[in-house]
């Protein structure tokens, strides 16, 4: 087989999908070319791919290896791919190698486009952030249990556990709910009230079978670096999505001049992911309202 007979055309179609039409033959001599082309597109930021093999006449074992490579490297990077337009011969080869139940194969290009349309790596617009809106409905404490107390740091874990145990077990995620409550209480006591025992913390919480809500207000000056935090988090998440782990190392901890040795600088990273209906601060920055919905 001649390695010269492979050609491919790359098109950009709807929903940020990169469509690669592969024509000719894929064999040992040329599979590397297509592999490099895919890698370059991936590195350039494409994360939804459709491969159209309708004009591909022949694939040898290195071509099969290429399909596996594309599949594996996409899976590791949250890239959505779909292969389509296999000829009966190629389809048989895929079946013989037992890859038919592993590789994402669609019957037509249209189906492949539909399959990858909404998936894959989220765009920068989908990165979560902290909202500032004291008028948010998440601050509506009606129907919630309320307590006000001079909370001290040594009591934070115990109180968090007591609050978490008011939630139905399926909402607790093992100890995750307790831990997430504890982070917000710790922030209020330590960074808000600066461990001043004269200052109090107001807490409101409520749980249903699939919903957890919490409002925590301290008497401090407020978290003033929300914009900075959001920028930091956005960069962190983009680096994570791009698998830029060496650069990501610089974004593992958000620190301010008030951070001390025991501050992980990461509590709100987990909070914005865990509280999936929002992490909202009031304008002063001394009250935070959060909500999580589960789909069990």
């Amino acid at each position: 087989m001649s390695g010269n007979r492979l050609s491919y055309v790359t098109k950009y179609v709807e929903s940020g999908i990169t469509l690669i039409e592969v024509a000719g033959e894929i064999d040992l001599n040329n599979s590397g070319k297509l592999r490099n082309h895919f890698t370059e597109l991936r590195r350039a930021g494409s994360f939804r791919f459709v491969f159209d093999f309708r004009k591909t006449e022949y694939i040898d074992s290195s071509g099969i290896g290429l399909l596996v490579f594309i599949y594996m490297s996409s899976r590791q990077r949250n890239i959505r791919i779909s292969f389509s337009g296999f000829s009966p011969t190629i389809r048989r080869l895929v079946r013989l190698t037992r890859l038919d139940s592993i590789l994402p194969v669609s019957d037509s290009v249209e189906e492949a486009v539909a399959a990858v349309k909404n998936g894959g790596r989220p765009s920068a617009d989908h990165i979560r952030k902290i909202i500032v809106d004291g008028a948010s409905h998440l601050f509506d404490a009606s129907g919630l249990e309320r307590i006000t107390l001079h909370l001290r740091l040594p009591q934070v874990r115990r109180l968090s556990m007591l609050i978490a145990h008011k939630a139905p077990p399926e909402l607790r995620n093992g100890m995750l709910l307790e831990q997430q409550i504890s982070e917000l209480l710790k922030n209020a006591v330590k960074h808000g009230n600066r461990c001043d025992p004269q200052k109090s913390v107001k807490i409101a919480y409520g749980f249903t079978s699939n919903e957890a809500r919490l409002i925590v207000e301290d008497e401090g000056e407020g978290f003033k670096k929300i914009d900075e935090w959001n920028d930091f988090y956005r960069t962190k998440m983009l680096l994570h999505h791009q698998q830029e782990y060496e650069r990501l190392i610089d974004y593992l901890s958000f620190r301010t001049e008030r951070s001390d040795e025991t501050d992980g600088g990461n509590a709100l990273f987990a909070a914005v992911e865990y509280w999936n209906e929002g992490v909202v601060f009031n304008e002063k920055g001394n009250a935070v309202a959060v909500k999580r919905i589960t789909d069990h």
Partner: protein
Amino acid sequence: MSEAPISSGQYIVVKLPRELDLYNAENVKKKIMTVIESSVAAVIFDCSALIYLDSSGLGVLVYAHTKLLQKRKPFCFSELKGAPAQVIKMTCLNGVFPIEDSLEEAETYMRRKIGI
């Protein structure tokens, strides 16, 4: 926190406590740093007992990670599960920390890394 005996040039298994939080973070950090500063070649953090990890605890692991990278000492985590595993995933540290499913796999990984 407990550690297996240290032999120079070998890897060490550091068993993390059941809970690693704001109350014991500083103490655990000191112990981990003593291990990192010792002559061990590599560190496995055994998370089989760990059921609670908060941001302070995570801060300790991030700090240890930075120090180990600086000292070019390989390390990995093993048997991470439950809420701590979810916290590590939510903070994207699963892309940064080498994580092995079992202690056995972690030891195999480490032997390969340090060539023993």
